[in-house]
């Protein structure tokens, strides 16, 4: 049983352990910088090894891992996300004078490892463990700024709700174990096909939907998200809105398409309802927000709603649409948060009013932010447009025309709150004068995110082609 297919994970673990030692023993003054370069190096090597690994390794370690196209997609996406967040974190940690900046990176890498496992697991146990690894690291990251009361509050709320939700998830998993006698997804789906859909199976499914739904911040289990996003340090919020959320979606796809494929009618309907409520409530509440991070939290909830439309379609086109939308959403959001971090590092707080006159203070960031918002709304020439366009198509093909229309209307509503930021940036004179000095890495992150959003918007074909090839069923 060669370990080549999981080489990237092994390399990442090695990097984690090595960096832990560095944190303990390196006493030099620029701990923050050194740790960041170490993390960057570790993640880059992981990405490199991915190139040598055969993407279609199939079922490994007696079903614990299924390394198919989707797993490959996520296994390079998450380290990339890690790179972005690492770049964003350095200056933030320095500005906020966090006590122990080193450990931040170790916990971040652990979280990423957890997410990669979630995406490529073939067994309920590995999903649970991957989920917990990511969640626990997230609780810690949320509360990382000990002095900041908001960070503590965010952590406690996230922790308590997270623990309860994983309790619910576990209960569901135990029920499925009881009903099918197996924890491996493929065997579960085999047995379920014979068993059909007795009431208890449906109940177990509900537990799973809610347990994972919580992680994705689907309404009505989203309550923790706005507080956690607003309270947590900005790079962590960036990570939350992109990392664990995408991993949770990966887990949902894994569980529902591989495991519960026989109940496709039931859970697609459930997700359709969830999608409707989530996107509508997310958009509506976002209109009111004064704090940018809280507004982005609701926007992220709304986008979770849009992604769920892919699930509601219940077809492989839906899955492809979801993956692509996630890709677009991930990089656009990272770009936005990079700008928010840059501004946050200078202004201290993240109120909407701090964005006034940004177009004069740093035109590049302002223009980038406009492009990112356009991508989130789904204006053409941006990645977001094609993401939404595919979701729209998948929904219509599965007959959910009403859901597609709701998505269109929601996109129109979302213009409302993005517009207020753009208005402040361009049409209102800057509150405090002076150009905004932006750290090098943040500019790098914004530029890369901008490039991905635009390139995806324009040359959409290669990405779609490869994605379709990977995730074809069977």
């Amino acid at each position: 049983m060669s370990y080549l297919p999981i080489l990237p994970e092994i390399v990442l673990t090695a990097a984690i352990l090595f960096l832990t030692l560095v944190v303990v023993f390196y006493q030099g003054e620029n701990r923050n910088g050194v740790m960041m370069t170490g993390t960057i190096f570790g993640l880059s090597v992981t990405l490199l090894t991915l190139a040598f690994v055969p993407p279609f390794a199939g079922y490994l370690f007696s079903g614990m891992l299924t390394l198919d196209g989707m797993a490959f997609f996520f296994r390079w996406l998450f380290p990339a996300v890690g790179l972005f967040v690492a770049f964003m974190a350095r200056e933030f940690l320095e500005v906020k004078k966090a006590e122990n900046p080193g450990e931040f990176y170790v916990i971040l890498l652990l979280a990423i490892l957890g997410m990669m496992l979630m995406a490529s697991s073939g067994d309920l146990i590995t999903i649970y463990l991957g989920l917990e690894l990511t969640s626990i690291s997230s609780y810690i990251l949320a509360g990382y700024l000990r002095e900041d009361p908001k960070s503590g509050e965010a952590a406690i709320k996230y922790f308590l709700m997270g623990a309860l939700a994983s309790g619910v998830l576990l209960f569901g998993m135990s029920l499925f174990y009881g009903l099918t006698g197996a924890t491996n997804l493929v065997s579960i789906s085999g047995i379920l096909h014979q068993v059909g859909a007795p009431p208890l199976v449906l109940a177990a499914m509900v537990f799973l939907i809610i347990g994972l739904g919580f992680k994705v911040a689907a309404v009505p289990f989203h309550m923790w998200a706005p507080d956690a996003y607003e309270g947590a340090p900005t790079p962590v919020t960036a990570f939350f809105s992109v990392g664990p959320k995408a991993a949770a979606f990966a887990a949902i796809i894994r569980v529902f398409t591989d495991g519960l494929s026989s109940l496709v009618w039931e859970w697609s309907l459930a997700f359709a309802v969830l999608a409707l409520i989530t996107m509508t409530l997310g958009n509506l509440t976002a209109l009111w927000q004064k704090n940018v991070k809280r507004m982005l939290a609701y926007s992220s909830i709304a986008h979770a709603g849009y992604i769920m439309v892919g699930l509601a379609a219940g077809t492989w086109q839906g899955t492809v649409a979801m993956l692509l939308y996630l890709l677009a959403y991930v990089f656009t959001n990272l770009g936005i948060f990079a700008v928010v971090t840059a501004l946050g590092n200078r202004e201290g707080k993240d109120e909407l009013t701090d964005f006034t006159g940004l177009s004069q203070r740093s035109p590049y960031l302002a223009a980038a932010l406009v492009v990112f918002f356009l991508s989130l709304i789904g204006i053409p020439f941006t990645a977001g447009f094609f993401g939404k366009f595919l979701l729209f198509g998948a929904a219509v093909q599965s007959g959910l025309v009403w859901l597609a229309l709701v998505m269109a209307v929601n996109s129109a509503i979302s213009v409302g709150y993005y517009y207020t930021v753009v208005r402040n940036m361009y049409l209102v004179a800057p509150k405090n004068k002076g150009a905004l000095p932006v750290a090098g890495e943040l500019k790098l992150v914004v530029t890369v995110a901008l490039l991905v959003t635009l390139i995806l918007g324009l040359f959409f074909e290669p990405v779609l082609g490869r994605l379709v090839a990977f995730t074809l069923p069977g």
Partner: protein
Amino acid sequence: MIPLFYVLVVSTLLFALGVYGALLSTNAIRILMSIEMILNAVNLNLVGFGRYITPSDPRGQIFAIFVMTVAAAEAAVGLAIILVIARRYGAAAIDRVRMLKG
């Protein structure tokens, strides 16, 4: 031989008690305890199913073991966070923690 249904009844009641505790208490530590109870209920479930559905295979118990380890880790981190809160708000009274809202 104890019928499976009885075990499930006990685990469900324990689960319900855990949930009731979590919703009711205002002291963070008490909520943590309730969470532990919920996890215990799940373990009971797992072991029960292990015994009756797959007696020859230790699958259930292994799952339970992993749940335990995670529960331990969770408790550790949870308490650490609670201490951070306690330093700020004195007692771990959750209801005073209401800065983030709206």
